[in-house]
């Protein structure tokens, strides 16, 4: 079988269930692939891993991928399993922030490490300065948990619909006690989990074919996971996921982002993402060739 190494962007969790399912259910085998799934972590940059030759394909957010492309690692989006973004900003209702107009002078928790672009794009749109002071907002680099809200260190914090949000619920907040600013709902979302491979390698037809098979099997995995979410969560647990209940819930939420599981990139969202990145000078020129629909076209007929 052909070997493929997949580097995830985060630790093993239902966020990546499709790949684990495809592997566990033998979808990869069926395509003649031997896939090695490498979990990520807070300080793994999949872009570096692929640049160093440690992976054939990575799960990445578009911001990071385009930035890396401009820095000489020619990443190409070959599929986009997540159609919608899962990131949102939540604020407790008993706090000072109820609407966008209340942000001024308050502290907001933001994830960095490449996840801060949607936030800055949004603030830009609102015309709010992010250097603190009474006329702007104070930005706190948030750890990847919900403590800043519980400790009242921030007035709002970033969460993923499929993960940290539920930790708040677990911590005793009721959904009706939280104000939610969902980036997708506001139209401020940037593309999240997509599959990226190296442009150079894609020129090789054999590799391209391998990717076609990989994407096909992966999307099949996603479809299965969406349809059998409890079983999928179980598979994630078998691969080192934590907290079964939580994974089940996560799978349910992730399913909402997957949509129809065709993995096709929506060019409109792509353009919006690229523009937002340009506006924030994360990248300096309009990217070209940063995505291809060839793979998904061949994979999903």
């Amino acid at each position, binding site marked *: 079988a052909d070997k493929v190494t997949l580097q995830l962007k985060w630790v093993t969790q239902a966020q990546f269930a499709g790949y684990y399912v495809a592997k566990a259910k033998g979808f990869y085998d069926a395509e003649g692939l031997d896939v090695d799934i490498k979990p990520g972590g*807070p*300080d793994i*940059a999949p*872009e*570096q891993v692929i*640049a*160093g030759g440690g992976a054939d394909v990575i799960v990445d957010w578009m911001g*990071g991928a385009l*930035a*890396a492309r*401009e*820095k*000489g*690692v020619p990443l190409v989006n070959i599929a986009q399993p997540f159609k919608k973004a899962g990131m949102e900003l939540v604020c407790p209702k008993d706090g000072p922030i109820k609407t966008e107009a209340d942000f001024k002078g308050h502290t907001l928790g933001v994830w*960095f*490490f*490449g*996840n*801060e672009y949607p936030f800055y794009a949004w603030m830009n749109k609102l015309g709010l300065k*992010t250097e603190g002071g009474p006329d702007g907002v*104070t*930005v*706190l*680099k*948030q*750890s990847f*948990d919900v*403590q*800043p809200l519980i*400790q009242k*260190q921030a007035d709002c914090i970033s969460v993923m619909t499929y993960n940290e949000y539920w930790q708040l619920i677990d911590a005793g907040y009721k959904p009706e006690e939280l104000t939610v600013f969902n980036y997708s709902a506001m139209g401020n979302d940037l593309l999240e989990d997509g599959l990226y491979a190296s442009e150079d390698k894609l020129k090789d037809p054999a590799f391209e074919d391998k990717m076609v098979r990989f994407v096909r099997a992966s999307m099949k995995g996603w479809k299965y996971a969406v349809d059998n979410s409890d079983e999928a969560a179980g598979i994630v647990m078998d691969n080192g996921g934590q907290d079964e209940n939580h994974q089940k819930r996560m799978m349910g939420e992730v399913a909402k982002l997957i949509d129809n599981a065709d993995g096709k990139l929506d060019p409109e969202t792509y353009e919006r993402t690229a523009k937002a990145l340009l506006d924030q000078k*994360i990248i300096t020129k309009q990217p070209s060739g940063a995505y291809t629909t060839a793979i998904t076209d061949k994979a999903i007929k």
Partner: protein
Amino acid sequence: MSSVTPRSWQAVAALALLAGALFSGPLVTATPGYGIATVALIFILLLFAIQMDRFPPAIAATCLFIGAHGAVWALLHGLAGNEGTARISFFLLLAAAWVLAWRCVALLSSLRPAGKWARTALRLIIPAIFGAWILILWEAITRGAGIPFILLPPPSAIGARIANSLPILAADVRQTIFKAVIFGYVVGSGAGFLTAILADRVPFFRRGLLPIGNMVSALPIIGVAPIMVMWFGFDWQSKAAVVIIMTFFPMLVNTVAGLAASGHMERDLMRTYASGYWQTLFKLRLPAAAPFIFNALKINSTLALIGAIVAEFFGTPVVGMGFRISTEVGRMNIDMVWAEIAVAALAGSVFYGVVALFERAVTFWHPSVRGG
């Protein structure tokens, strides 16, 4: 007495590398012509190198210095526009130049100049050359082999980034070093020291506190940092708390060992004066412990920096060296990451150097300082 060593091995090695380079063809795939000048330059200097033992070391070292660095400059200069296409001969020439620079450093370290200034200059020049070559090799390899920028940028790019980002770097240094590191270092080292004294003074604590002090030793930053952020907020106080925990243990262990280091006869002498605990401590045991205590201060000077930076990976205001590093990694601005690392290394070295100077002044009597 050059009669003992026939010729320096470096010259022989350089010659061999050069021959290898000549046989393995052009330096880069793109422009085959480039490099002849470099080869010639190295070759001439090699002749010098071989004859070198005839010259006074100072002159030979100067020749080598100019030669090796001139050659490598030519090598790097020719690389512009040809990144990633260097061939084996390029690296052989690079190695040849390196070996000559090595010889240069060896010659320089054998010099024993009479003047105070010359000695000071040498003390600075030798590590500088050594360091310069780390950077040169890094530059030549990253650019020559075309290592992806986001894996490891060449030093020239990092230098440019430092020059362009001075205000940001300054703000980060202020946040991380002048607030978290210094406070944490002083309090952490102080606490380790006082705990050691307490344990020494009260046998009950000695038996009870030391095993528990050992447990503090490995509280991993990654485990502790989130907790500290929880307790002390996301600003510098929580980073200082992490630094305190990290620096506490080396000081505790070293002070305890140092307090046992004074001689028996000296302790007996203080007993004959019916000297109290504190007098014996200050007049005998602490001075005798000074080499150990300075050991801890030196180790802590680097630990404190690592601790503060790493702690900033967890929850910070949007300024600070650790914040910048983790953020810029996400933005693929690896040059900025290395710019911060370079600043950290510089700050750490200065910090360490200051501690080492104090050590020399305070423990001038210790054989390790007196005798070399």
